[in-house]
């Protein structure tokens, strides 16, 4: 069983319009790497070149805020990616 990923509209151009995806990985960073393999370019839009989460992107693992790419995920977990409050 994979991690269930919900992506925001800002990333639909990478996912072919899909809002719910499956991805593999034992950490948030590994899941993002897998998403990038399946949807090239997606990772760099949400994480910068040094692995920092971009200022207007939020990650939630099973509805709990995730602020480190090292946080673990297990099969069946839900990863929610949100584009949050970037201004007018």
């Amino acid at each position, binding site marked *: 069983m994979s991690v269930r990923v919900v992506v*925001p509209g*800002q*990333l639909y151009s990478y996912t072919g319009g899909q809002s719910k995806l499956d991805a593999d990985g034992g950490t948030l960073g590994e899941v993002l790497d897998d998403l990038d393999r399946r949807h*090239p*370019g997606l990772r*760099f*839009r*949400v*994480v*910068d*070149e*040094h692995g*920092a989460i*971009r200022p*207007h*992107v939020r990650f939630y693992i099973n509805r709990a805020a995730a602020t480190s790419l090292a946080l673990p995920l297990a099969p069946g977990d839900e990863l929610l990616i949100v*584009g*949050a409050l*970037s*201004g007018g």
Partner: protein
Amino acid sequence: MDQSILLVGTRKGAFILHDDGGRKDWRVSGPHFLGSAVHHMVLDRRDGKTLLLGTRPGHLGPTVFRSSDLGAHWQEAAKPPAFAPAADPAAAAASVDIVFWLTPGHADDAGVWYAGTVPPGLFRSADGGNTWQEVAGLNSGYLPGIQQYIGAVPGGPPLHSICIDPRDAAHMYIAISSGGVFETGDAGETWRPLNRGVAATFMPDPAPELGHDPHRVAQHPLAPDRLYQQNHCGIYRLDRPGETWQRIGAAMPAEVGDIGFPVVLHPRDPDTLWVFPMDGTENWPRTSPDGRPAVYCSRDGGESWARQDDGLPREQAWWTVKRQAFCVDSGDPAGLYFGTTSGQLWASADEGATWRRIAEHLPEIFAVEAATVSS
């Protein structure tokens, strides 16, 4: 048959205007990347068909897209501009926030492009903009040593005005807002400042070597030793191999001043240039002076200036024009185009003598580039 187009980057996406004949009627197409800031969209003049644009959606990271069919299809760069980790692991590493400026490389270097970013960084692509590498001689070589002179500007200091000498691809000029103008003679391995004679009234030293605020630098394509600069502190000219800029804005009317963002050069005559003054008095409103927008033109290298506002609003117009948002085409007479912070596009088919509004109600305009494509 060749067709004139205008490439317009805005705060909320990109638009392309197509000339329906005689530079009079323009048709707007787009938006492309609606909702994403597009700071620069540029045609590769070497092949006449490839477009590159730098974009950053409000929520996501910056990137570069390419199109070879005037925007019908876009392909994202496989490796957008990005900084390497800092040499000192304890130091905070910069990350690219905005791909601010794009310039095709030398005419003989097919596929080479340069990009300038916020925070200041210079990047090079050798494959038409698909993958980007740092110009390490600047980003990790020269800039860390002068970091203390690079100030804070709204939105972050951009690297812009990448000028490649048409006689020598290794000879380049760049500008960094709140940093200065810099020159390399070895394709970016080593750099030196080129700011002598330029005022910096916001610094304690009246004649610093670094820390100036160039808003736009332009090199004449047919007379590459002639440089012009619209600076935070005036309009300047430099004739190389000279080292000292001359403040040609001193001849501007005192009630208008010589503060602004863009400077545009005539495609053939090195003595003809245009600027778009803004109000830089007291608290720096950055609007048209007195609410009366006007272009100013010099035909003698900055010795004298003439106001060009026929067709422009005569009162209560408080917009201005950003540094990439004023351009010239290669026509004869030359056509001029500028986009405003209020989303209007204005054009002149007679070198600024008369102006017409050719589009309105667009988002805030960041960049306008005139280009010719084969249709």
